[in-house]
């Protein structure tokens, strides 16, 4: 493994953006960062800056207002980038299916690499999903 791929997969930086979620999955993402689950042991750090991030974690369905923000954040991230959707409502619309202001899943706005099921997704599932996504980063090469 060359040094670039190695540093990407051993220390991916996350960016979290909440679209129209209910916060259930957002707080589970935060819970994955705190002592009990502690994803930092995999080198995963939560970042606030899209320009530094490798993996974008999105929760909640896109709506008519936030899809531009989401696209903007996605465009600001440098290649190679991954998008991981956390929770069913971000994957397909889920419980907010018939809500008038939602566009449906995140994949209606930006390409998605990994979908994590659950409402709310458990921290174990979130960690698993991110690790799965890292496999894709590895395959990306240099």
């Amino acid at each position, binding site marked *: 493994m060359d040094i670039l791929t190695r540093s990407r997969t051993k220390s991916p930086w996350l960016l*979290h*953006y*909440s*679209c*129209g*979620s*209910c*916060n*259930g*999955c*957002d*707080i*589970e*993402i*935060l*819970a994955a960062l*705190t*002592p*009990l689950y502690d994803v930092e042991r995999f080198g995963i750090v939560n*970042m*606030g*800056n*899209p320009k530094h991030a490798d993996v974008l974690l999105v929760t*909640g*369905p896109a*709506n008519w*207002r*936030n899809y531009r*923000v989401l696209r903007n*954040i996605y465009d600001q991230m440098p290649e190679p980038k991954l998008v991981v959707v956390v929770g069913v*409502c971000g994957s397909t619309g889920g*419980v*907010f299916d*018939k*809500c*008038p*202001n*939602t566009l449906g899943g995140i994949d209606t706005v930006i390409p998605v690499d990994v979908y994590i099921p659950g*409402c*709310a997704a*458990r921290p174990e599932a979130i960690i698993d999903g991110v690790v799965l996504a890292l496999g894709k980063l590895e395959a990306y090469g240099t």
Partner: protein
Amino acid sequence: MARTAIPFGPQHPVFPEPVHLKLELEDETVVGVTPVIGYMHRGIEKAAELKTFRQNVFLIERICGICSFMHSLAYCQGVEALTDVEAPPRARFLRVFWSELSRSHSHLLTLGLLADAMGFESLFMQCWRAREIVLDISEMTAGHRIIQSTCSVGGVRRDINSEMAKEVDARLRALQEMLDRSISPVFLHDYTINRRTEGKGIVPKEQAELLGAVGPTARGSGVTVDIRQTGYAAYSDLSIDPVVETAGDSYARTKVRVRELSRSVELVREVLAMMPAGEILVAVSNYPEGETVSRVEQPRGEEIMYLKGNSTNYLERVRVRTPTFANIPALLGMLPGCELADVPIITLSIDPCIGCTER
């Protein structure tokens, strides 16, 4: 002096949610602030008219994942009033049990985020470590860490047996010890916390009343208001003294939360000890008819839910007034005059929940 406009959000490292404020600055001082909304709007109120009143419970729970149980509680109480059903006594106590669990996990969450916003990482981790105890209890009793999904029209859907009650009690004692040892003293006496929050974002009592602040934001300004005192669910059988501080600044609001947190943990244990035996769910055989207003005290303050039924399986109108919505005017009163660096902390001190507010 030239004015600078700074967009604060919608994607901001401090907040898990898209809070968006347009700040106007003169030098480093905030002189104007305009909230921008809509990033999380889904249209739940409309969707609630398209689903049956029983299905709605699952939708209403997902207005906000942090106080999900209380949303469903307000909704179920409202529908019970419209269908002339009364929840059995054991169910009313179980409702208080999950309400207070939600309150303690919500307060720990927000205190942790506040510490994180100050850069006090170890305290953030401690708060969230303690919070895992509450989430474990929630998982053990309700089957899920965040969305308990136990409230139902006519009662609750899960019971707690005596072994479980014993285990919960033991874990809560461990939590109480942890709070007393490593969390409450830090929030109440630490120099850093004090300097970052004291005197920041002051709302005097009159202004808090005038702006209609609710919950810890109002109580931090000396307004004695706590909807639990109206005695919904089983609160009439418990003694509820509103926790009140008078300074009206971010520090006072933090202190209110820290003290409420201990009281919540006590309340859960009290409820477990005095829970009557009996059934937990009664059948609802008629359709909701008429209109009603149901109020509950959420971790962030008073929630008002207006429901209107027309004797069909569907409700005609569901209207939710969430606590953060009531607290935003107070927030706009707090920000002008503060420094830019204090904006995240002042905003967090009202514990904003945008998911609730925009639904």
